[in-house]
């Protein structure tokens, strides 16, 4: 039997995997009855509101809360002096819950109020009088990099940092919070061998995550000192740890429950309103809800780091890139933004996972400024680095008059190659995704342009690779009940990606039961086991494996008990729809019959164990990037790499700079599509979010203050203007993935910006070097090109 036949046979044996099973949360969400974090409320709950800084940088002279405290209906008012004097942060402890003596960006929390109603809380917040002495500020990242710059964190040398991210204090660059450096081969000699040198500077803007549900938390201080928090977070255990750090409460005494989450995209891995809600609940002794407004989400949560990327390539005549030198500067904003430090480091993975460059140097620097903090964002630094690299690949092709696809193929990394950080590459199916997009994009066809008029047509392409981080871990527990139901306990929040459905499919597959038999608990750190969170496109792989193992464990226990009951060896038994049947025999028993009923018939139990519990955990140990050398300590630094190819067709108006995106093709190798419809949804969603960052999304600062912190002035793509996105799914299995699956969440966002910029060049000859690609920038580039031609 050939391997293809074997594979086909295996697939036909799969009952739920690979099927577009209807989402398990569909009914609740379609009928509007699903409870999201923002919907959640408790009896006697107070409403909290935060007083925020109007200055990008100022000293706090005095906070007068008298008028607020005496307002009728106000139950608690807090400032920095009422909460623990501690700084928090996942990777650098630099962030105060409430500013104590200095504010560092517009929108920073200064004080907070809890009151009987939201209206009273709002009124009270306006009654708090804060006296400031404004300080000089800096929001331009390259200015903040200078020695003479305004210093954002004079105490930076005293801050505590997590072990993987030591702060390197550089007296010449006082605002640099993190610096990652790696060198591979010899860059100088590489350049001396080059026939051409191509160098460019690329930029990206501050983009907001734009999760539909604004950040929100409800906190209750229990009488015995424990704390309960309801927060639609991407990572309940991360929230628990942060609250523990801030309030110095043992983690077991903090309970985080996550309702449905209306999107997160990286922002909600970090605490936003949770600490303030807890502090207000402690002070008022009542439950407190702190729900941010859309404006507060813009000004006071996180943004995608704006990057400046300098890239210099030495290229041989045949298109081989012999040397590459990259300098990446991240505008980190006022604080570490939770995961900002690791965005600074992890953006390296986007730069070393597609092309094989013999001599390579990479420096990334995260710089504090008085802008809103940068944090984790779908793509996690890869998107910004890919923007520069994939524009650069076209620049090289244009300069050397080489084929754009050929130059990419020529420089590809192959299985077995060592990449620049010392990883041995596994087989990453770059060729496959390129082929599939080219079938649609048809670059070989003659250009179809208009005979006259201002519109020009163009096609663009980008090849990117998204990593999934390691080491991380996910655990799952299943509890099989006597009414033929299985409850799955996981701490993976359903953030909209369809993960609850994926877990249900996997558990139902292993127990060979209907998907409807599975109930997914929803995260509650008191009951559900550890999970690293909804990040890095990791949950289908990590939690998927954990769910599979937990279900297999439960199945094994069922078989053992049935074997004893039926006096048939386990190997002769199979489970099907909650019945254990003898192969080639007549004996059978229902799972419910394995349980004993209590005399009152109020419940059932299993002799010996009480419950039927299956457990699973998946974790992967890999090397880490040595902070000194930048190189991986083993031959693997990530869980896996996922290849993505993006092709676009556009029309550009040479008179106005307006662009119409006609078609987007996105191919990604997901290993195995456990739920093909969900995979398509993730691809479309990722591409459209990427489209937003590519063409219109930008949080604009003027005088240090965001001026478009609302949905009228901050532009996002709308369904009416969104082109058809064709999702192309490839399935070359991942060795350790559940049924061969990899993650899909982030890959689709990584290639759309450079593909569009390259298409504009194809249409008009003009290149824009910074996103978003606004009509104004496109027109300026077209006019510049026209001038150069003259």
């Amino acid at each position, binding site marked *: 039997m050939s391997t293809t036949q074997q594979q086909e046979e295996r697939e036909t044996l799969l009952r739920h995997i690979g099927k577009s099973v209807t989402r398990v949360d569909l009914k609740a969400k379609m009928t509007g009855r699903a409870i999201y974090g923002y919907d959640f409320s408790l009896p006697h709950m107070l409403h909290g*509101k935060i007083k*925020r800084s109007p200055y990008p940088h100022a000293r706090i002279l005095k906070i007068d809360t008298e008028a607020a405290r005496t307002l009728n209906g106000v139950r608690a008012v807090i400032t920095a002096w009422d909460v623990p004097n501690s700084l928090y942060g996942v990777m650098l402890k630099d962030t105060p819950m409430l500013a104590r003596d200095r504010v560092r960006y*517009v929108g920073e929390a200064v004080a907070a109020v809890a009151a009987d109603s939201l209206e009273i809380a*709002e009124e009270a917040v306006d009654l708090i009088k804060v006296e400031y002495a404004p300080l000089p500020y800096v929001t331009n990242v390259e200015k903040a990099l200078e020695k003479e710059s305004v210093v954002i964190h004079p105490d930076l040398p005293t801050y505590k940092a997590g072990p993987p991210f030591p702060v390197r204090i550089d007296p010449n660059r006082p605002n640099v919070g993190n610096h990652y450096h790696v060198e591979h081969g010899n860059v100088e000699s590489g350049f001396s061998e080059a026939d051409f040198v191509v160098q460019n500077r690329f930029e990206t803007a501050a983009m907001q995550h734009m999760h539909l549900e604004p950040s929100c938390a409800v906190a209750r201080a229990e009488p015995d000192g424990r704390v309960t928090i309801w927060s639609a977070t991407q990572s309940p255990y991360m929230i628990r740890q942060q609250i523990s750090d801030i309030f110095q409460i043992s983690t077991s005494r903090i309970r985080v429950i996550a309702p449905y989450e209306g999107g997160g995209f990286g922002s909600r891995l970090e605490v936003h309103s949770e600490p303030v809600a807890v502090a207000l609940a402690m002070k008022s002794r009542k439950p407190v809800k702190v729900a941010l407004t859309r404006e507060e989400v813009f000004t006071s949560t996180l943004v995608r780091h704006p990057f400046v990327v300098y890239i210099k390539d030495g290229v041989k005549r045949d298109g081989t890139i012999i040397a590459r030198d990259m300098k990446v500067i991240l505008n980190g904003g006022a604080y570490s933004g939770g995961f900002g430090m690791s965005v600074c480091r992890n953006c390296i993975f986007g730069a070393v996972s597609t092309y094989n460059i013999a001599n390579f140097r990479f420096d990334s620097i995260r710089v504090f400024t008085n802008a809103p903090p940068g944090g984790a964002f779908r793509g996690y630094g890869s998107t910004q680095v890919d923007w520069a690299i994939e524009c650069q690949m076209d620049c090289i092709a244009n300069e050397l008059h080489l084929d754009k696809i050929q130059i990419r193929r020529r420089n590809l990394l192959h299985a077995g190659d060592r990449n620049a950080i010392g990883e041995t590459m596994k087989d990453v199916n770059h060729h496959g995704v390129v082929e599939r997009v080219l079938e649609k994009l048809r670059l070989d066809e003659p250009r179809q342009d208009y005979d006259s008029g201002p519109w020009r047509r163009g096609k663009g392409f980008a090849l990117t690779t998204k990593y999934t981080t390691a080491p991380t871990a996910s655990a799952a527990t299943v509890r099989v009940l006597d009414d033929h139901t299985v409850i799955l306990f996981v701490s993976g929040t359903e953030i909209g990606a369809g993960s609850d459905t994926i877990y249900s499919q996997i558990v139902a597959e292993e127990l060979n039961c209907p998907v409807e038999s599975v109930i997914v608990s929803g995260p509650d750190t008191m009951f559900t086991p550890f999970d690293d969170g909804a990040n890095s496109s990791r949950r289908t792989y990590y939690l998927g494996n954990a769910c599979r193992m937990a279900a297999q464990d439960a199945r094994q226990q069922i078989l053992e008990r049935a074997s004893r009951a039926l006096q048939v060896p386990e190997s002769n038994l199979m489970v099907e729809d909650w019945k254990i049947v003898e192969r080639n025999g007549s004996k059978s028993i229902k799972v419910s019959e394995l349980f004993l009923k209590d005399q009152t018939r109020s419940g059932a139990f299993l002799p010996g164990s009480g419950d039927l519990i299956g457990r699973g955990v998946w974790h992967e140990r890999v090397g880490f990037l040595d902070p000194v050398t930048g190189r991986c300590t083993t031959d693997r630094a990530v869980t896996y790499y996922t290849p993505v190819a993006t092709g676009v067709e556009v029309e550009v108006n040479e008179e*106005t*700079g307006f662009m119409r995106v006609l078609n987007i093709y996105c191919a990604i190798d997901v290993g195995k599509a456990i739920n093909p419809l969900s995979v398509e949804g993730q691809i479309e969603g990722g591409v459209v979010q990427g489209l937003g960052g590519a063409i219109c999304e930008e949080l604009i600062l003027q005088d240090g203050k965001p*001026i*478009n*912190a609302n949905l009228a002035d901050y532009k996002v793509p709308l369904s009416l203007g969104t082109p058809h996105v064709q999702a192309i799914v490839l399935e070359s299995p991942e060795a350790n993935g559940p049924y061969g699956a990899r993650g899909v969440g982030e890959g689709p966002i990584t290639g759309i910006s450079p593909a569009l910029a390259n298409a504009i060049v194809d249409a008009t000859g003009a290149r824009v070097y910074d996103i978003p690609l606004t009509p104004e920038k496109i027109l300026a580039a077209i006019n510049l090109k026209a001038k150069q031609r003259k």
Partner: protein
Amino acid sequence: MLKLGIAIDTVASSRFRPEDYVFPATMEEAISILSSEGEKARIIAGGTMLFELAERKMIPEVKKLVDLSRIGLSYVASDPEAIRIGSLTTLSELTNHETIGQTRGIGALTDSLSWIRPIQVKNVATVGGEICSATPLFDLPPALIALNAKLILVGPNGSRTTDLDGFVLDYLLCDLRQGELLKEVVIPRPKKGSGSTFTKLERTANDFALLNCGVALELDKEAKCRSACVCLGGALGAPSRLSKVENKLVKTNLSRQDIEKAAEFASEVQMSQSVQASSAYKKSVAKIICRDTILSAKERALDNN
């Protein structure tokens, strides 16, 4: 000058919470409330703009909202001279009204209605609100100005008729006097041989205009331009007619060259910077949108001969 997106106090927390909401039963009662309360009372039509402006603290504090929905101002009527639109008519009602679809020469109006995209907004936003909120980015006013629309206003001293052109004075400011309300918009029936178009430049498919333009042309029997009305919105605080462009068009054959020459003057207009674009960019594309709108209006006028 204020723009959408600028001068917002992003850190103020209190929201718009008027103290009173009243439904006058008659026009007289409405006028009496508006006269006695002054700026503290404000007409609420669809509310799509009022809440936005109040939350951004861009209008004086409002204590009382006056809802005109019960005084019979929602209608579209027509006579041989004109089409009459009650000020409380919603954009959806207007879009779906057969008179609007059947009248020749008012393409600018139907264009502008189709450019206003979100159906949820069209279902509540009103013709009167589009005009009296005096927002420079709205799409209906330039189209109506091009069509030479008149306004019938009623107030404590009786009623008066005025041209829509010139009624909007500046950003968020129109010539609505104390106690006055807009009763009706009157669009004179276009003559045979006239055609009109409205176009818009917008960043997303559901957006305020970067610039918009309404054009109405009337041709004589030789297809020469008898009269031209060209109105540009989004440049400054109020939509404005471009008289230089109009003068250059009149008496020409409206050849492409004539139109291009005339449209050049659109870029001479002073433009304000906005969140979405610089004034230089707006200047460079004003002549383009102006040219394209005139070209289309000409085609429609030729079809109406």
